[in-house]
Structures are given as structure tokens and as C-alpha cells.
């Protein structure tokens, strides 16, 4: 390796940087600069003097941490966070549980119709989140929904799916529907990467398929479970599309239902860019802390297992 490195020409030394130019420029313009700008805005505020009339009456001044203390004590933001956490506690376990279950079933022997069912379960991935929310939104509406039709015929009570507690289930269902297939494929792919010899020994020992699934398959796909869990949690924190799409259909989704919806409302509805920026920064920092903490924990565990 060393000798190749020495033989590298001038061109080969500069080439990687040249190849990275487009990505670097785009990163600077559309990632770094906006983040820096958001940080800058979050420490400023608009000061209104007098009646707020005239050209000099509205002035941007330094605000220090004021926007942050406001955001952290904002009850709307807190409630939005709690709502999203409650929603995440439903979505993540159900979605990943189903994804794992389907992946194991696909991987089992003598299963029929596997290509068809795999494709069908993966299909929602191709459907935009907004359209998915719109489709389910109609299925939740008593006037057009088949569920209500059936409940009506059976004479059963008809709950309002777009209000109160059921609203969480309604929203969770949309996310589970859209995300299960993708996660199933990720887990299934790593299941297929397990060499067949691994099972042979267990089979000779008389292990049942269930035992093989629980004792061998699940531990071996643990890394992809960690990965899917990680991405699902991040997606949950960033929830925006589904509640926004359901909003026209119900009054129980407020404009501040999720934290990101509140950021949007404050920035564009209220025109308060500074407090919106502070909230955005808080959400971003929370996401990053959570991600890094999680990745470190996952790494440590993997190392422990490798050491065993």
C-alpha cells in the first residue's frame, strides 16, 4: 500500500478534491449556510419602538438566549413534543414488529405467494406520504369509508377516528402502512445474507423453525434492526406531512400539532422568524444528540458482542 501511495502522481493527489467539489459547494450553499443563518436568526429579535409605524420603528436587535428560553417554556411546543412522542411510541414498535414478522415469514421455507406478498407490502413505499394520508383520510371519513359501512350494517358504535385518542391511531396507521414494507425489505435482505450453513447445524440438532427464528435469525439481523429503529425514530421526530394533510378533514389537528408544524406556523403564519429559528435549532440539536447517543450505544454493544 505504501509503495502505491508514493507512486501516486500529482493528479491522483488532487483528483479526490476535484471530484468532491460539486458536493462541497452544494453542501455549503444548501446545508451549512442555512444552518448558520438559522443560528444567527435565533439569537436576534425584532424590537418595535413606539407604535411600530414608520421605517425606523422596527429594528432587528441582539436577543441573546431570549428566544431559546421562550421556546423551552412554550407550552404549545411542549404539547406538540408530547403528542409526537406518544405517536412514536405506537408507530415505531408496531411498524418494526410487523416488518420483522413479515421478513421472517418471507424467509421461512415452503411459504407460498412470497414474491406477490413481498411486492404488495412494499408497494406503499412508492406512494407519496401526502397521497397516503389523503387516501387513509378518506377511509376515515364516515361518509365514504367501508369500515363505517360495515359497522353501520352490524349495528356497532361508530367511533370518530379523526378526534381525541383515535386520532393518534389514525395517524400511526398511516405511518405504519407507508413504512413497514421498506423496513421489511431491509431486514429481509440481511436475513438472506445469512449463509445457509448457519442453519444446518441447528436443524441437525432438531431445532424448530420458531427456535431458529428466535435464537439465530433475530440476533443475526440485529444490526439492521438497529438501523431501521434509528431511521424510524428520526422520521417520527420530523413528522409533518401526515397531520398537515389530515388537517383539512378534521378540526382536531391544530396548526401546532407537531413541533415542526409549529415551526412552520411561527415562521410563515405569524412571521416570527426569530422564535421559529430558535425552535428549529432546539429540534435539530435534540435530533443530533439522540442520534449520536444512540449510535454510540449501538457501537458499544456491537463491540461487546464481538469481544465475547
Amino acid at each position, binding site marked *: 500500500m505504501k509503495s502505491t501511495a508514493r507512486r501516486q502522481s500529482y493528479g491522483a493527489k488532487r483528483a479526490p478534491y476535484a471530484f468532491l467539489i460539486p458536493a462541497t459547494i452544494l453542501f455549503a450553499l444548501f446545508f451549512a449556510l442555512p444552518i448558520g443563518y438559522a443560528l444567527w436568526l435565533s439569537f436576534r429579535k425584532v424590537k418595535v419602538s413606539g407604535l411600530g409605524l414608520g421605517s425606523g420603528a422596527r429594528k432587528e436587535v441582539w436577543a441573546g438566549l431570549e428566544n431559546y428560553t421562550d421556546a423551552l417554556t412554550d407550552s404549545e411546543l411542549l404539547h406538540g413534543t408530547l403528542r409526537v412522542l406518544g405517536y412514536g411510541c405506537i408507530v415505531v414498535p408496531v411498524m418494526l414488529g410487523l416488518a420483522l414478522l413479515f421478513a421472517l415469514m418471507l424467509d421461512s421455507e415452503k*411459504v407460498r*405467494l412470497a414474491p406477490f406478498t413481498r411486492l404488495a407490502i412494499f408497494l406503499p413505499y412508492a406512494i407519496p406520504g401526502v397521497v397516503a394520508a389523503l387516501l387513509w383520510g378518506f377511509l376515515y371519513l364516515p361518509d365514504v369509508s367501508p369500515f363505517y359501512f360495515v359497522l353501520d350494517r352490524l349495528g356497532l358504535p361508530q367511533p370518530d377516528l379523526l378526534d381525541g385518542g383515535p386520532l393518534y391511531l389514525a395517524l400511526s396507521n398511516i405511518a405504519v402502512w407507508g413504512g413497514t414494507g421498506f423496513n421489511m425489505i431491509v431486514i429481509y435482505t440481511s436475513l438472506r445474507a445469512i449463509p445457509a450453513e448457519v442453519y444446518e447445524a441447528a436443524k441437525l440438532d432438531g431445532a424448530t423453525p420458531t427456535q431458529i427464528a428466535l435464537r439465530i435469525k433475530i440476533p443475526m439481523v440485529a444490526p439492521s434492526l438497529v438501523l431501521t429503529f434509528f431511521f424510524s425514530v428520526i422520521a417520527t421526530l420530523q413528522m409533518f406531512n401526515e397531520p398537515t394533510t389530515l388537517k383539512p378533514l378534521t378540526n382536531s389537528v391544530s396548526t401546532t400539532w407537531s413541533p415542526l408544524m409549529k415551526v412552520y406556523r411561527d415562521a410563515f403564519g405569524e412571521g416570527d422568524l426569530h422564535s421559529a429559528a430558535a425552535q428549529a435549532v432546539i429540534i435539530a440539536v435534540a435530533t443530533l444528540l439522540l442520534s449520536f447517543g444512540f449510535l454510540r450505544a449501538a457501537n458499544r454493544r456491537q463491540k461487546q458482542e464481538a469481544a465475547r
Partner: protein
Amino acid sequence: MSSLTVPGAEPLAGSTPGTDRGRPPLRRRIALIPTVTLLLGAIYCLLPVAWVVIAATKSGRELFSTFTFLPGTGFAGNVRDLNAYRDGVYWEWMGNSALYAGLGALLSTCVSAFSGYALATYRFRGREAIFNVLLAGVLMPPVILAVPQYLLLAKADLTDSYLSVLLPQILSPYGVYLARIYAAAAVPADVVEAGRMDGASEWRIFTRIALPMMIPGMVTVFLFQFVAIWNNFLLPYIMLSDDEKFPITLGLFTLLEQGANTPALYTLVITGAFLAVLPLVALFLVIQRFWSLDLLSGAVKS
């Protein structure tokens, strides 16, 4: 495992071909629990799609009066209404989506290929640092980026333009990540070295030797980005106000917003949703045999 063939799963996936052939022929018995479980899952996933297909065939009156899963007679009328809605703005939305997703995914794939190749095959100062910084972009919530992106583009007088939706979506951290993994697996170091010995320039080595080897992975990156941009709602929602530049997701949303209180518009929204789902599902069915899904989970052997 034995009866399954995964379209698009190349031998890369690791299960050595041929191991299954040595087994005695399977008894024709169906594993009941797995099959039924999967069928239930498939029904759950197809239900809303089946519903929209049928609902799109119903006229406004049939939608509220006939059983949900009974096809109606109004499909042609619905499509006519949709065509007539604001002089066919619906089809402009479809065209816009195709433009954003097609061009955006193409540019994104190029940028990912450049970066992934550089990060995988060269050893240079700052390699891991650059990679990690790019990857951190995945973790940034889109709204956090989109709000300041909007404000900055507003200063450059670029909001409410095609560019404002196209440009921020070209760099995809996930695409760079996939391209790096794929380049590391598909482009052997000695092939690159051999090209250098022959006196080829770095650019020539990339375009003539490495890129052809990376094509299958790049198809995946393209498709992944295509779906991501086609499905994106938030960025155009923030950037655009002129509805002739809307992509289909945003167009349907505004249609729903207007239609929520006027059930007469429901059929329009439903037919619009049905037609919007069609191209993606069709694309999906065609490409899923080429789409190397293994790559999505990083299961390429390196």
C-alpha cells in the same frame, strides 16, 4: 428460502447460489402460518390502493350512496372534470413532478457518483471528516433546513421558481453514502491502479473504467432519489406560491384543502390521487427487478 427468487437480488447478497440445489426435492406442503400472515399483510397494504381505484370510478352521487367496493360508472366523467379543472392545471403538476424528480435525481446521481467514487477509492487527508460532515446532513430535519433555505433564496430572489425546488435536493447524503459503499465494493483498487500505470488521467479512469462498474448501484441511487423527490411535499410547500409550478403532491394537497368543505370536489381529489399513484406504481413494478434493494441496507460485501 429455497422457493424464493428475489428479483434484483444479485449474488452479491451473499447466499451462495447452488446450496439449495443439493437439498432433496421439497414436499408440496404449504407453510400455512407464514403464507396467511403475509397474505393479511398484503391485503392491508393493498386496501387503500384498491379503494382509490374503485372510488375513482364513481360519480359524485355514487360515492356517497353505493357500497364502497362497488365500482361506479363515472370514471370518464371524473377524468373530464379533472382535465377541465382550471384549464388542466392537474397535468401541469404531473409534468412539474416529472421534471423535478427526473432532472433532480439525474443531477443527484452524478454528484453522488463523483463523491462516492472519490471517498471510496482515494486515500486523502480529511476523507473521513468530509464523509461524516456530509452524512450529518441526513440527520437534519427538513424543516430546519427548509425555512432558512427559503429565507436565503428569497434574498437571491429565487423563491417561487423551479430552481428553488430543484437545487436544494441535488445533494443527497444518503445517495453519497450508497455510492461510496457501492464504489468500494464494485471498483477494485488494482483496476484503478492498472489504469494509472497505463497513463490514463484520473478523469478518464473514472469515466471509462470505474463508472461502468458502478452503473447498477447508480441506478439504485437514481431511483431512490426519484422517489424521494417525487414524494417530497415540504420543500415545494414552503418554496412555491404559484400553483403552475406545483408538483403533484402539493397540487393534490391544495385541491384537498379546497375540497374538504365541498364534498362535490371529493371526486376530483380522489381521481387526482388515483392518477397520481399510477405512474409511480407502474414505474415501481417495472424497475423492481432491476432495483438492487440489497444496496439500500448496505448489504454489499466489501
